[in-house]
């Protein structure tokens, strides 16, 4: 039961983008068309779930026994970066059409704060392996939902008559702020 509350907690209540600010750069930079945003969501989901499993295992079975836990940051960033490179190479080789839709966003994920943020949070909240995977999944589902909604809103913003100086990023930030207000409303859920 508390896995479900963990899932709801991370997907909606403290959503990774709107209340922990983990992945604001991709939110503003890339989400113009909803279909692309969804593809990016899948790519990020795939990488975050694998990354949170691998980082959890490495931390508890390599870093703690060898007492080199001060290498946690560099291990995580290298694992995530090599995972991204591997997934991109794997997609290039096996399925070009998935690469065509998702491939654009894979290199972006290396500098995506959400992936590293989740890995570090799993360790600091000392989840066990199942909770870490559920947390990874919850964060990425939350990320995908927010980025998809954001893309649909931004599509309409293009045709709305926004004041001259608010065009582009400022209005996107204001919309994200209003979305964050809406999300803060359900803070007491968990």
């Amino acid at each position, binding site marked *: 039961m508390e896995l479900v509350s963990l899932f709801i907690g991370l997907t909606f209540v403290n959503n990774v983008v709107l209340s922990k600010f983990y992945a604001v750069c991709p939110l503003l930079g*890339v989400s113009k068309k909803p279909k692309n945003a969804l593809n990016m969501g899948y790519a990020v989901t795939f990488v975050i779930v694998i990354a949170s499993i691998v980082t959890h295992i490495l931390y508890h079975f390599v870093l703690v026994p060898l007492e080199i836990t001060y290498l946690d940051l560099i291990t995580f960033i290298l694992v995530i970066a090599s995972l991204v490179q*591997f997934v991109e190479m794997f997609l*290039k*080789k096996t399925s*070009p059409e998935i*690469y*065509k839709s998702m491939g654009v966003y894979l290199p972006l994920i*290396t*500098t995506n704060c959400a992936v590293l943020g989740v890995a570090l949070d799993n360790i600091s909240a000392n989840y066990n392996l199942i909770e870490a995977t559920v947390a990874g999944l919850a964060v990425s589902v939350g990320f995908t939902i927010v980025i998809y909604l954001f893309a649909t809103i931004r599509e309409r913003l293009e045709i709305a008559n926004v004041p001259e100086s608010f065009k582009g990023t400022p209005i996107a930030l204001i919309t994200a702020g209003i979305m964050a207000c809406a999300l803060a409303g359900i803070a007491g859920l968990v």
Partner: protein
Amino acid sequence: MNLWAIVWLALLIAIFIGTYIWNKKTPQPEGCEDMSECSGCHNIACTHHSAHHEEEIKDEY
């Protein structure tokens, strides 16, 4: 000075550089060259960033 630290780091960096080069070597599938949609952001690490294109052209000549 923990020796394991250096061994573990060397292993990790080797894996990362290995996959990085391996990924650079695999050619793009045919219909995917024009990743034009991602032009706006200044994220240097993203291999679609302009910095990487010049470098590719330099490598070829």
